[in-house]
């Protein structure tokens, strides 16, 4: 009960009831205190409860207040027996404890809700914003001239905050050039690049035109790199691994694909436009494309070199032409018409010449083509003739040898036969040998093929595994990150939580209580078992007694007919049995009475707790007071 009282008193104090320090049990509560605490609780639970904070002096008013208190408590759903003004005014400890337990339970619990689940990061952010705003709102206004660059120094956590907009500026980032792989072992840095880094590249903080852009630029560069890496990782995981190419090959393939796509697009566009200059433009664009692909292939060093080169060539020609034209125009200083005429003549002459030349050129071209065709024919003819000559020569050789052999025909035939035989033998031999070589080779080929297919499938499997591992890796990393975040959140939550000493004390007490209850349960179980065993023993004993009695009874009864002494003994036995039974009954009755006595004692105890006498005295006093009040009122009425 002490624990309960302490908890109740603590909660009452926490809602603002004025309870003195030396009160540590509900027994010590006076009527005024009880009423004040109950009113406090009810007001805390129900804001619009219309109750005075203290007990009024008038007896009737007190009565009314007690009644309304009881009313409120019942409205809240109290179901612990009958409730009335007497509960509060003439209190007894047990009832008051019940009511306060109910009220304390009903108190709105803010802390319990927040502790239930970890808050999301957005909630945390909101909370930080709220605290920051609260802190800023609580500070008095300060004229802008007293703040340096709009920064206001304060004593709370970050030590400063920004007020006003005078020193704000837009986010403006420029490109930063960062040295790459200066000390890397895998990538060899070209000498020129290293020299550029060490001699000409400015430091990061000095690269932007305006110093204020440095921080935004650094942030931008980092963010860009991080996002690029993430993007690449994503792509590599999705489609890169499936392509079974190395990263470099994959990138190269992708690049060529994109280039092809761009050029296709351009061509399509150009075809749609179908204009004179668009052809030129297309050619230019294609040159650009070619130069771009050239550039990407040849690396950073030759940046745009070919493009510049072709450009130079093109424009160089143009320049020459224009220069020539200008020179021609300047030389003869004749009149306008003459020059015009001359020019026209010249143009006509040149045109004629040009057409002549073209026709000649065409003719020559045709001639050349004809010649080439005839030459090809000739070549073919020569080739066929040579082939024929060779064939004929061979035929001649064979025939000549046959003719040579003819004179000694018999001999030669046998010789030839032998040669043919030996050749046949050799052929067979060779075939056998070939077979011999071929079999293991085929075997090897087969095994190798199998091996390769196995390897292929293994590679496939490994690829799958790799993919699975990658996914798992990512998952685990995500999980780890998530957990870390959660941990951070929980940490901040924990730090933010009021370090209530009572909480830990409560938990300790609860644990103790639970342990106590367990112990008690154990004891009760033990006692129950004891009782049961005793009951059993009693039962068995009484059974034994019964049986013994019956047997003895029978024995003696049988003999009693013959012997007088035994008759007497039988009578004694009956008397003994009866007496013993009486005895046991008496013992049982004593037990019952003892139990009753104990019950009654308990009842007396509880009744005495109820302070009946004191309450009775109080009631009579109050009754007297009321009588007096009534008498006074009557006198007043009569006086009127």
């Amino acid at each position, binding site marked *: 009960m002490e624990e309960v009282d302490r908890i109740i008193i603590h909660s009452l104090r926490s809602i603002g009831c004025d309870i003195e320090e030396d009160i540590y049990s509900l027994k010590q509560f006076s009527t005024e205190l009880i009423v004040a605490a109950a009113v406090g609780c009810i007001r805390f639970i129900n804001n619009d409860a219309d109750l005075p904070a203290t007990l009024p002096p008038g007896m009737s008013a007190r009565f009314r207040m007690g009644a309304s208190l009881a009313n409120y408590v019942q409205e809240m759903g109290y179901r612990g027996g009958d409730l009335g003004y007497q509960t509060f005014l003439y209190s007894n400890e047990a009832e008051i404890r019940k009511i306060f337990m109910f009220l304390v339970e009903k108190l709105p619990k803010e802390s319990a809700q927040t502790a239930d689940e970890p808050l999301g990061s957005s909630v945390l952010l909101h909370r930080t914003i709220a605290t920051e705003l609260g802190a800023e709102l609580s500070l008095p206004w300060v004229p802008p001239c007293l703040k340096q660059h709009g920064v206001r120094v304060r004593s709370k956590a970050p030590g400063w905050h920004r007020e006003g907009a005078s020193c704000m500026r837009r986010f403006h980032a420029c490109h930063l050039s960062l040295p790459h792989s200066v000390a890397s072992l895998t990538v060899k840095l070209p000498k020129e690049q290293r020299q550029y880094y060490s001699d000409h590249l400015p430091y990061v903080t000095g690269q932007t035109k305006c110093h204020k852009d440095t921080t935004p630029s650094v*942030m931008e560069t980092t963010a860009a790199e991080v996002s690029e890496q993430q993007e690449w990782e994503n792509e590599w995981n999705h489609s890169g691994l499936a392509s079974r190419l190395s990263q470099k090959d994959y990138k190269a393939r992708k690049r060529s694909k994109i280039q092809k796509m761009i050029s296709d697009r351009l061509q399509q566009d150009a075809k749609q436009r179908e204009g004179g200059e668009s052809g030129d433009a297309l050619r230019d664009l294609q040159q650009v494309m070619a130069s771009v692909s050239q550039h990407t292939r040849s690396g950073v060093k030759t940046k745009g070199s070919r493009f510049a080169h072709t450009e130079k060539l093109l424009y160089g020609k143009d320049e020459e032409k224009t220069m020539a034209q200008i020179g021609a125009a300047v030389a003869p200083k004749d009149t306008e018409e003459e020059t015009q005429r001359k020019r026209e003549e010249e143009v006509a002459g040149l045109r004629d010449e040009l057409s002549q030349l073209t026709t000649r050129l065409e003719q020559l071209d045709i001639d050349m083509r004809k010649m080439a065709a005839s030459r090809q024919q000739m070549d073919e003819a020569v080739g066929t003739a040579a082939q024929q000559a060779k064939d004929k020569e061979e035929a001649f050789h064979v025939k000549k040898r046959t003719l040579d052999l003819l004179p000694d025909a018999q001999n030669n035939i046998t010789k030839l036969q032998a040669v043919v035989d030996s050749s046949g033998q050799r052929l067979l031999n060779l075939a056998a040998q070939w077979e011999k070589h071929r079999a293991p080779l085929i075997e090897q080929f087969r095994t190798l093929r199998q091996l390769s297919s196995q390897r292929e499938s293994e590679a496939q499997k490994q690829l799958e595994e790799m993919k699975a591992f990658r996914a798992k890796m990512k998952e685990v990393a995500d999980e780890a990150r998530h957990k870390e975040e959660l941990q951070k959140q929980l940490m901040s939550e924990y730090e933010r939580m009021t370090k209530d000493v009572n909480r830990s004390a409560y938990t300790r007490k609860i644990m103790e209580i639970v342990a106590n209850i367990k112990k008690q349960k154990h004891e009760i179980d033990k006692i129950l078992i004891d009782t049961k065993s005793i009951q059993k023993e009693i039962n068995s004993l009484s059974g034994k007694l019964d049986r013994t009695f019956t047997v003895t009874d029978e024995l003696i009864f049988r003999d009693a007919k013959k012997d007088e002494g035994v008759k007497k003994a039988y009578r004694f036995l009956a008397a003994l049995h009866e007496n013993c039974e009486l005895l046991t009954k008496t013992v049982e009755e004593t037990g019952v009475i003892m139990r009753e006595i104990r019950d009654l004692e308990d009842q007396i105890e509880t009744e005495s707790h109820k302070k009946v006498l004191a309450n009775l005295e109080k009631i009579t006093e109050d009754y007297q007071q009321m009588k007096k009040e009534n008498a006074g009122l009557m006198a007043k009425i009569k006086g009127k």
Partner: protein
Amino acid sequence: MEVGTTVLENLSLAGDTAHIPDKCFDQLVKAACRGVLSEVDRNAIADDPAFKGVDKAALKAAHSGIVALLVEAAKHDVDADGISHILEECKFSPERIKGFNDIFTVQKPSMQILLGSIGNSRPHIRANHMERINEAVYLISLKTEVPGQDELQEVQFTCSLEQLQDLVGKLKDATKCLEKLAQT
């Protein structure tokens, strides 16, 4: 907080005693802080005698890595533990991590002030005064702070009583809204 591989690479270079000797390291971090914070010192590292004999390319790379880390750490409000984590990954020795953290914790507020000044906002009303010209018309002049300008600017307009009341009501609403936000 995440940083790209270039930054990590350059940071590892900064943590490598072969490239940046121990005696230079603190100087390098300080120079990076100064370079970010003050316009005057933006190129101070270039002619600092402390870095004589250090390969300029490596120094520049290390410097860029440290600047990126400083800015990112200030942006994410990372504490010493988080920084140690990253630096450990870049194979920094414990002394260097400690040195870096010592310098950074001192400079963090200034860095954050610097980062906090990046942004855009409406002109900030500073002070106002009203003149009653007639029965119904009010001349209102508001002093405002405009981003990027040191002097206070002035906004003037006239309005009738209702309009003025409307304006005051709006301002009160805004204040209430802020207070409500601060309480949740």
